[in-house]
């Protein structure tokens, strides 16, 4: 794949798009911390310029067939060269657009959501930091650069999750997120080093070109692909590193919408898509990825079925949708995976932002509480949420339907029917947990209607007074519109994306109509089951899972994965290795040094004891010695 020459204008445009949020970050941190309005203005201004830049770029390169690359040098040290540059191809342009659009909308939304918070300026500073890192990540031309920004988005995620640092759970969740993704990143880094040693270069285009197989043996490719996939697992919260994401919901809701559903966690999938040709060289690696995606998809769906926390449900659902994307990619469906990423970014951000409105209004995360307090009376967010949930469950004609159906078609094309079965089961579970939440909020059972009316009247009154409401409402409407429309852009997007990957065989041809019906009817089945259990008037609002205590606690405890990590950390790291090392330091090393010192002092004392009251003996010895010396010298 050759690079087309690029104009200086493009270089400038891209640089501005990428760097401006960073400038905003520095300015806010250094100068405008005290002035909240100015901080927000700076941040939003920077991100809207980025948005404009992104739109400009994607329009300019809409007929792109070959990649546009620009590389400068960031660092040269012996044989190590770390380039700084950017790579414009359909994937990065698409991702860039997604990131900037959602960043922009979320920052607008945050004006309302975060109003009055003590850390308002800090919030916008971190948001700008994230925007910079994420935009630069999508544009990276080499894996080195990608790794750098990969770490930086991890950092901003840490800072934003622990944004309300006074809550212990928030700072703990931030730490957990950082350390767990770091675990994946270490694998990623080792993979990078392995590739670097063998290929001598980490250029994404080089890595994706067919010549890789000539240089690296198949085993080596599999190993490095798996190691790099470790990074994907960490960042996209896949099995077994999936437990940090639900905890990350401790952050402010717009943060969850932006980082932990739409963009940052999708960076893992983005990396997978970025290196799709490289991964395709190894069938083993692809199968492992497929398995990991499937397991995480199913595990997290089951967790979502019993959770009462509205944000946690969406967090689990994010994991499971990311699992879908990875399944789609690993099954060979490049376009399917990326398309699902795109649609998911839209509807999941929408789900979070809607939940944010509820949480902001009723100050609780519990879905039963929200329902009881009259959540259904907030019309705009409720409608938007239903649309998004429908998209999530894959109901036509919303965007999720199209992308999920593409993934199913990919899975059907695989030889082994297990994957398709799992995928279809996931469709059912998704519809179940999505509408469980909706029904619980819309049809609250435990209170009488009058109280709800009263409540809603009060809140309705508040609503008119709430002057931030408009800022929070119109991002919802825009996203809802995108969710409705995006599915119909499938053909266009397919053309745009596969322009780049003309060489990669698309297996989408296999798909048949029966699959479509099966998957839609499964989604509808899920909907119906939920209606029976939660929606209809006589429903007990207890799910079929919750009737089995063992299963319920298993799901509530996240399959005990978290506990296992906790124990592992406590027993092996803290009480095991760390303790042994400390003891070694105190007892063995310091002990022996102190013993040597004490020994020296003691032996000195002992020898000094020999001197006591011995003047005359010494005198005698002196005389004798002189006598013998005299003998020696004279005779």
């Amino acid at each position, binding site marked *: 794949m050759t690079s087309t020459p690029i104009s200086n204008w493009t270089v400038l445009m891209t640089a501005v798009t990428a760097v401006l949020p960073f400038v905003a970050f520095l300015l806010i941190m250094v100068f405008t911390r005290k002035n909240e309005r100015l901080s927000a203005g700076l941040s939003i201004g920077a991100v809207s310029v980025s948005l404009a830049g992104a739109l400009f770029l994607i329009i300019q390169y809409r007929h792109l067939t070959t990649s546009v690359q620009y590389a400068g040098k960031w660092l040269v040290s012996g044989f190590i060269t770390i380039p700084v540059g950017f790579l414009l191809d359909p994937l990065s342009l698409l991702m860039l657009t997604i990131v900037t659009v959602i960043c922009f909308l979320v920052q607008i939304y945050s004006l309302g959501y975060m109003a009055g918070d003590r850390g308002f300026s800090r919030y916008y500073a971190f948001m700008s930091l994230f925007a910079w890192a994420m935009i630069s990540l999508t544009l990276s031309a080499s894996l080195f650069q990608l790794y750098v920004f990969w770490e930086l988005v991890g950092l901003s995620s840490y800072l934003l999750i622990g944004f309300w640092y006074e809550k212990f759970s928030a700072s703990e969740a931030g730490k957990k997120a950082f350390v767990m993704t770091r675990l994946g990143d270490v694998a990623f880094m080792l993979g990078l080093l392995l590739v670097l040693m063998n290929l001598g270069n980490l250029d994404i285009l080089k890595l994706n070109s067919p010549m890789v197989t000539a240089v690296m043996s198949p085993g080596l490719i599999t190993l490095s692909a798996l190691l790099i996939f470790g990074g994907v697992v960490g960042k996209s919260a896949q099995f077994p590193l999936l437990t940090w994401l639900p905890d990350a919901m401790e952050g402010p809701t717009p943060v969850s919408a932006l980082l932990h559903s739409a963009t940052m966690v999708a960076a893992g999938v983005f990396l997978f898509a970025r290196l799709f040709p490289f991964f395709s060289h190894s069938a083993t690696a692809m199968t492992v990825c497929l398995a990991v995606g499937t397991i995480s998809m199913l595990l997290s769906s089951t967790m979502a079925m019993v959770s009462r926390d509205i944000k946690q449900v969406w967090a689990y659902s994010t994991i499971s949708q990311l699992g879908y994307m990875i399944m789609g990619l690993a099954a060979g469906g490049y376009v399917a995976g990326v398309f699902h990423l795109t649609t998911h970014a839209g509807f999941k951000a929408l789900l979070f932002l809607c939940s944010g409105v509820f949480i902001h209004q009723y100050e609780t995360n519990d879905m039963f509480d929200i329902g009881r307090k009259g959540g259904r009376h907030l019309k705009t967010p409720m409608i938007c949420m239903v649309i998004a949930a429908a998209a999530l469950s894959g109901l036509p004609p919303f965007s999720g339907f199209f992308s999920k159906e593409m993934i199913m078609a990919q899975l059907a094309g695989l030889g082994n029917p297990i994957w398709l079965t799992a995928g279809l089961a996931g469709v059912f579970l998704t519809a179940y947990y999505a509408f469980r939440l909706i029904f619980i909020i819309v049809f609250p059972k435990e209170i009488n209607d009058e109280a709800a009316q009263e409540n809603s009247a009060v809140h309705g009154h508040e609503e008119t007074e709430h002057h931030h409401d408009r800022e929070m409402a119109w991002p919802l409407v825009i996203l809802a519109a995108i969710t409705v429309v995006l599915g119909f852009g499938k053909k266009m997007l397919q053309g745009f994306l596969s322009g780049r990957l003309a060489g990669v065989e698309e297996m989408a041809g296999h798909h048949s109509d029966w699959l479509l019906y099966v998957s839609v009817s499964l989604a509808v089945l899920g909907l119906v089951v939920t209606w029976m259990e939660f929606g209809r008037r006589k429903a007990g609002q207890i799910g079929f899972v919750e009737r089995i205590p063992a299963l319920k606690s298993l799901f509530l405890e996240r399959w005990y994965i978290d506990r296992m990590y906790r124990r592992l950390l406590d027993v092996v790291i803290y009480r095991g290795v760390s303790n042994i090392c400390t003891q070694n330091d105190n007892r063995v090393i310091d002990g022996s040094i102190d013993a040597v010192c004490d020994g020296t002092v003691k032996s000195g004392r002992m020898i000094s004891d020999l001197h006591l009251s011995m003047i005359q003996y010494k005198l005698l010895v002196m*005389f004798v010695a002189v006598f013998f010396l005299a003998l020696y010298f004279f005779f």
Partner: protein
Amino acid sequence: MIVPYSHVIVLAGIVFLMGMFCAVTRRNLIMILLGLEIMLNSGAIAFIGAALRWQLLEGQAIAIFILAIAAAEVSVGLALIVCAYRRKGSVDPGAYN
């Protein structure tokens, strides 16, 4: 009659040995000091004998120096002993640790 040099040396040697014996064996600081003085004097005797034997004046000069130094040493030594006695109440060197 002129005393032969060898006799003087023998005398000096005997006096030196006596002084040494005194300094090493007595359990009394004053006596140890006395022993030292005796040894010094034996040196002086040897010097004087040598001065006579070679007819040089330096030997006698040194003998006078020795007397002076011995006097100084005794005064300092006795002062130290008095000090030590006041502190410890004893003139036995074994008592001083």
